[in-house]
């Protein structure tokens, strides 16, 4: 079954034939996690670095922000049987798509915020493809853990 993850959303799956996908990662980050032993995988598509810009929105949807969404995403994966020490974590997106100077540099801010969180929580990134100025689509095949990207007609593993 194919699961599509929208913006500021996450999905976990545990079926061998499940494929999770999130489209059009620009400055947003896509985070894919997979525990081969538990057979659990998930993708989280996050928009902004910090909930402090809008605590109200963070209450309604913590998945808008890196600092509130990432811990929730991991906790839900643990509740589904995944274990932190076994997780393979991959990250994509964080691009600067705006024409001219990307004044707010949201993509980079997202990435720095994520790295800070991972450093505090002790998470290693096994594969990443971030920055640049391309829009990326991120896939995860839950049965195998294969994680890959598509952009501009090209496809490559992460």
């Amino acid at each position, binding site marked *: 079954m194919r699961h599509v993850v929208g913006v500021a959303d996450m999905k976990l799956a545990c079926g061998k034939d499940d494929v999770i996908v999130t489209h059009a990662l620009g400055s947003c980050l896509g985070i894919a996690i997979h525990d081969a032993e538990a057979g659990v995988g998930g993708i989280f598509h996050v928009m902004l*670095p910090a909930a402090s810009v809008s605590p109200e929105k963070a209450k309604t949807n913590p998945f808008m922000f890196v600092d509130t969404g990432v811990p929730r995403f991991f906790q839900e994966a643990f509740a589904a049987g995944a274990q932190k020490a076994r997780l393979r974590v991959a990250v994509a997106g964080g691009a600067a798509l705006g024409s001219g100077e990307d004044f707010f540099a949201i993509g980079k801010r997202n990435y*720095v915020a994520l*790295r*800070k969180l991972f*450093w505090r929580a002790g998470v290693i990134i096994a594969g990443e493809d971030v920055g640049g100025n391309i829009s990326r689509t991120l896939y995860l095949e839950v049965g195998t853990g294969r994680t890959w990207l598509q952009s501009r007609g090209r496809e490559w593993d992460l």
Partner: protein
Amino acid sequence: MQIQKPMPVSEQTLTEVAQQVLEVMAFAFVAPGDRRGDPATVCMHATVRFSGPFSGDVRLSLPQAIVPALVSNMLGDDEGCIPTERQQYDAVGELASVMCGNLVQILAGPEPVFTLRSPAVIVGTAASVRQAAASVTSATVRLDESWAELTLSLEA
């Protein structure tokens, strides 16, 4: 030893070095800045002296108010933990050392060998540090809601 002249240093080079080191080590979002901090701001200044084909020093100045959060990031402590004064001095010194090591090699090219001294860290206003060296280049970067300044002084 043959005396070698460094490549001319631009503010952009200083900015890029400060940016890379602060982002990777302290997880701070850094952007090119266009404003100097208020000269009355109390700062931590870490100076690292280097010697090799040419000599000088690199100084990192950070407003003291942002140092605890940066250092807590580096140590991976929980948000809100206040690092000890000793940890703050050590961490700011280490940031300056890493910036210095990276910067001198950009200026000298890949081959020459430099020796870096241990950092000297002091607290004082932004205006309190003055340069006596022959050549000084400085860059200010925006760092989250604050700023940082990196200064390279080369001896004649």
